[in-house]
């Protein structure tokens, strides 16, 4: 994106450069007075976790006596010392198990209990590694020079874990009085949608979803199908979700189908011609997985949103190949306003 200096601020001369982007993609925010530096802490290899654990409920879990690591303290959990120079803010934890055949391990096999440098439990009990892996909602502050303790438990009935890496990702925080605050410019997509006071004044907003299903038992191009919306409220169309399948399969997505949507004015929101296997002539649209979200909670986002006046009729072209049913929903907000003149 061509950005100008006037778009940003002094500390961050760049504007936010993609409304769909993830939070980490723009310039990193900085806190005034401190200087953060990325730093990844790793216990390089916890060696062999002897034997499998099948511990009945109520029995105290065992601390693992690892055979060979530089940092390990046998019989007293695994220790990760923090560097002594700066405090550390952990933003992500990753446990990586290495095994001769990881297909025999399950995410629930490794369970972990963590204490921070003050001896406080970070987890109330043993937790699945798969639950702990990943980013933390709030950075975890760790004092310089402190020592983390990891108690480990292998719940696999037969399979040994031959080695284990523990990695903390985060940043060291140094005092830096000259550091000024930097804003990344990141604003979540949901807050980038309309705030037009003319539209929203006196309005009541309600999450709404218009579901549609189309079926064709034969290969067919069904063009300009009307997607009738209600006439009780305007609609702010913000996303698409859906699936496609054959009649015999109501769970997984099967078969090919192409869709092309139009806004209520008939302006196509895609419809660029291409060919695909299983359909005899070029189509104008896009294939199933490229246009319909496969996660019900997270629709394929549309930015900017499309305003559909009450009773408005967006349209869709559907090219059925070997899929026989396509189901999708237009997701967004209904805008209820007081009726006038009625």
């Amino acid at each position, binding site marked *: 994106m061509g950005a100008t200096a006037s778009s940003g601020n002094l500390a961050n001369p760049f504007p936010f450069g993609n409304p769909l982007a993830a939070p980490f993609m723009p310039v990193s925010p900085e806190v005034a007075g401190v200087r953060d530096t990325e730093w990844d802490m790793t216990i390089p290899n916890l060696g062999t976790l002897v034997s499998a654990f099948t511990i009945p409920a109520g029995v105290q879990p065992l601390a693992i006596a690892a055979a060979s690591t530089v940092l390990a303290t046998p019989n007293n959990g695994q220790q990760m010392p923090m560097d002594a120079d700066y405090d550390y803010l952990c933003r992500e934890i990753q446990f*990586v*198990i290495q095994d001769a055949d990881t297909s025999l391990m399950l995410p629930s096999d490794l369970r972990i209990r963590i204490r921070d440098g003050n001896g406080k439990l970070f987890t109330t009990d043993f937790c699945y590694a798969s639950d702990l892996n990943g980013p933390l909602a709030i950075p975890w502050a760790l004092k310089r020079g402190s020592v983390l303790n990891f108690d480990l438990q292998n719940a696999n009935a037969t399979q040994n874990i031959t080695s284990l890496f523990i990695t903390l990702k985060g940043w060291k925080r140094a005092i830096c009085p000259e550091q000024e605050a930097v804003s990344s410019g990141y604003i979540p997509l949901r807050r980038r949608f309309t705030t037009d006071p003319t539209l929203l004044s006196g309005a009541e907003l309600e999450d709404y979803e218009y579901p549609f299903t189309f079926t064709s038992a034969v290969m067919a191009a069904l063009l300009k199908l009307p997607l009738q919306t209600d006439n009780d409220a305007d609609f702010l169309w913000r996303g698409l979700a859906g699936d496609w399948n054959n009649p015999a399969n109501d769970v997984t997505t099967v078969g090919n189908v192409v869709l092309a949507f139009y806004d209520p004015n008939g302006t196509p929101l895609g419809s660029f011609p291409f060919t695909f296997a299983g359909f005899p002539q070029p189509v104008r649209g896009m294939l199933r997985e490229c246009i319909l979200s496969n996660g019900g909670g997270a629709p394929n986002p549309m930015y900017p949103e499309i305003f559909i006046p009450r009773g408005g009729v967006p349209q869709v072209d559907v090219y059925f190949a070997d899929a026989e049913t396509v189901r999708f929903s237009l997701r967004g907000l209904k805008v209820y306003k007081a009726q006038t003149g009625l």
Partner: protein
Amino acid sequence: MIERPQYYNLALNQFGSANPSQTNIEKKLDSDAPFRLLGIAIISYLGNSLSFTNMRMTRPDRSWIQRFLAPMTALNPFYQDVQGAIGEEPGGAPPPFLFASPISPNLIYPPGGTIVFDFSNLADTIAQLVLVGTKIFRPGAVWAPSYPPKPYRSIPFLDYALQITPPAFGAAPLLQVPFDVQPDADFAWQAGQHTGGGMQASLTLGGEALASIEFAAVTPGTGGDAITVAITSPGPLAPLLITVVANAITIQPQTDGGGAILTTGAQLAIAMNSTPAAAALVTTICQGSCGDPIPNTGGVATPLTGGTNVGPTGGIGIRIRDWNGKYYMDDFTPIELIFGFAHAQTPGLLYPEIYIPKNQALYFDFSTLSNIPAAVAELTLSLKGQKVYGGQS
């Protein structure tokens, strides 16, 4: 200041299985602009478990970011999607999507800077590490059009399609494929997805002292598997005759007085491709010994095989150039990173977006980074973003 997307690539298949550990591997950055590193992405093509391979890398001052060598699976943990917290299963196919993991706070490398890597346990890895970030330029230094002054009108545009036939593994790259923006509006490209176009079913017949003939279905997909080819063994003095009934092609070769087949591979290819009913089903190619007689199947109808429907594509690398010909990456970048498959809600993201005025274009180069999985007949890229009306003419 202007930011534009930049991808630096480091192939990890150049060291060989005899050199499992590599230290002081230097990645030299371009000298035209500083580089803001915002994330790293790693893809394994061989199905290696990247949890077995460890690395660390340096900041601009050459201090390490990682205290010790850390598993690649921890540094780019999306790979664990394949098997929870355990790491991906060795030998499995790589997922058809790739997301960068954040480097936070970002690191700003100077122009011409160097990033140093240490690797351990590379084994016979065929993988690629991508440094995802932005280059920082002064205004006017590079092609960087932007939105028109407000007010302007824009709509979401869900699919600009770009369709190509990717080169086979080892073949020359496909260069300078234009992506043209339509004349009605500018386009702010923000995200991408890909889908494969399927494979054509095919059948190859041949033998010693015989021509080698390939019949390939015209339309990619499993529908091609329903096509059959039968070459009969007629009596003496038969003429060449091609008949098509539905999906069944029957070829009666020309024979001499003793019943020996006279029709050569070259003659059959010409005859098949000039027979409308047959040419509508298959493309016939003589692959070798084309002056020799064609084989016969004894009249047995033999089906074409191997047709596949639309699905994910892997192992393709992509380079993108702007309207002035300046690349956004230093080498071919895994297509899974910019054009992921199967997740319309989380497509591959460009940062920042690339704004392309109407009637201008980007140019794409394609190459095959790996023979795993096999190349596809077609590759369809979906470019998503906004159409902006009222922009530059």
